[in-house]
């Protein structure tokens, strides 16, 4: 048990370190922070002064060491574009993003799980078929297009809802949350349906029925517990993916001041420090969610507590 935990936490550290390294190399080795951050045609003296000021002239190893050291202390430097502490800017925007992503993923995901488990019990029903088609369409739809179409219908044509802007009121948040929730819904629906129908084919379900349990009892007491692991894993994974992925686009379309839009703008501005801060926060968030999923797996499935694996045959 302890060994597993230590290994898992080591993995967490490696993952974060890897994310830091890739970002660092992309910004400093592949690109040049000065070219990214300064306007075209900046005189050479200004470029030199910029590089000197931020230590970009040191060799990469030194820079990376310094970056790591500062990062551990929570210091990501000052934003070039907005001024002030880069990490501070990220944390300022965090609540706005969470306000959209958490309800979207939990709402959409849980609805997907519910409908998925209903469809798994009646796989040939009209509901199941309809939801299947719907989930495939949803997965194939570009969120930004959907967002625009919703704006076109609800805000431009029938002007029920505002087109965009930051205002934590339900009528403002409903469209972005709706767009963000669709994919978690579809993914969880498909996964729940697939794993539950696989589970229903297993002998222990037949044995449970042979005991005299009702279908409801079979589902609640036996099947759901066994599908909980993949479903919760996916939910947490989706939360991470939406948080740093889809949210960027939706925030841009709806002009929502979350960290996604901050990241896009930071990149446009070539604000190396701000970009690094956003990436680290995003990586931390996703890696923590993954860790959480693994711990959950560990807690619910007794088999993992006695990891007995024969390596070869």
């Amino acid at each position: 048990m302890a060994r597993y935990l230590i290994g898992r936490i080591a993995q967490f550290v490696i993952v974060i370190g890897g994310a830091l390294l890739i970002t660092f190399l992309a910004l400093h080795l592949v690109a040049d922070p000065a070219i990214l951050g300064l306007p075209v045609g900046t005189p050479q003296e200004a470029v030199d002064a910029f590089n000197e000021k931020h230590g970009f002239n040191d060799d990469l190893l030194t820079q990376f060491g310094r970056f790591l050291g500062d990062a551990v202390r929570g210091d990501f430097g000052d934003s070039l574009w907005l001024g002030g502490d880069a990490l501070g800017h990220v944390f300022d925007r965090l609540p706005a993003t969470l306000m959209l992503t958490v309800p979207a993923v939990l709402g959409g995901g849980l609805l997907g799980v519910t409908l998925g488990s209903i469809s798994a019990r009646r796989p040939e029903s009209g509901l199941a078929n309809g939801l299947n088609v719907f989930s495939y369409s949803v997965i194939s739809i570009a969120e930004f297009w959907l967002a625009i179409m919703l704006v076109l219908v609800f805000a431009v044509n029938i002007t029920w809802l505002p087109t965009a802007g930051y205002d934590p009121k339900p009528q403002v948040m409903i469209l972005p949350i709706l767009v963000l929730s669709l994919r978690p819904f579809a993914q969880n629906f498909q996964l729940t349906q697939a794993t539950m129908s696989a589970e229903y084919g297993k002998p222990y379900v037949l044995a449970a029925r042979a005991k005299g349990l009702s279908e409801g009892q079979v589902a609640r007491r036996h099947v759901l517990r066994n599908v909980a692991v993949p479903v919760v894993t996916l939910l947490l994974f989706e939360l991470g993916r939406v948080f740093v992925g889809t949210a960027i686009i939706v925030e841009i379309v709806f002009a929502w001041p979350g960290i996604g839009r901050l990241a896009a703008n930071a990149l446009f501005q070539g604000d190396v420090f701000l970009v690094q801060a956003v990436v680290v926060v995003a990586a931390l968030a996703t890696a923590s969610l993954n860790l959480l999923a693994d711990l959950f797996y560990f807690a619910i499935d007794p088999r993992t507590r006695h990891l007995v694996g024969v390596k070869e045959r």
Partner: protein
Amino acid sequence: MSGRLLGELYRRPIIVAAMTVVIALVASSILVPLISDLDASAPRLSKRLEAPSWAGGDGGLLGTDSLGRDLLLRIMLGMRTSFAVGAFAALMGAVVGTLVGLISGYFGGVVDAVLMRLTDIELAFPGILLVMVLVRALDRGVIALVIVLGSISWMLYARVVRSAVLTLRTTELVTATTGLGATTPRILFVHVLPNVAAAAVSLMAVTFAAMMLAEASLSFIGFGVQPPDISLGSILSSGRDYLSTSWWISTFSGLFLLLGVLSTNLIGSWLQRVTDPLSIHTGS
């Protein structure tokens, strides 16, 4: 095998429809720009924001954009970019990922451990953010986009192929072939690869669709294809400012994207179902 596939198809008209759509889209994205005598980039100020002809405008079949350019032609060129980026990125991911998955699944050990850590990093890494950083660092451009998208998708193939190889290893095929005296490369490429290729191929259709979406999304927020290259994402983005007056720009570009992606996704998920290596073993 192929007879079985045809029989499957017969029972699934929706897949036939999806295949037809994909073929039609590919064909027209190649043919329309060839046939058309219009210029996709040159502005025609007299024809700015004309509605489609069937909606009472003078903009041809799908209308014109804010610079008076023909939307049908631009959308077809955008589709071409989508298909090209999707295909090359998926192919790159498939080739690299299949090789890595094959080797890591077969040999295990250090190679395998490193690969699994890499995949973990990728899973924990904010995908689109990473792509944005890399595209920005590589100074944009279609080639950069393909390379970046390809280099994030290979891990998925590696994972899938690796687990297919591991499943195959639990059967006695590999042991039996070793027992015949086959060399390791022969076992890998003559016996193992054909049996896991199906998994990779059906994954290709699915990643192809995902890559098309990713390209459009990136171009939409300005990190993807840059003018003069045309992307559905950038057409869609340019239509946002005229949403209240010229709805057709964003609507049609997105609709075509949806058609392409949905069809490939349907084909991909169908392929995944029918080429499941286990269904081959059980025969029938």
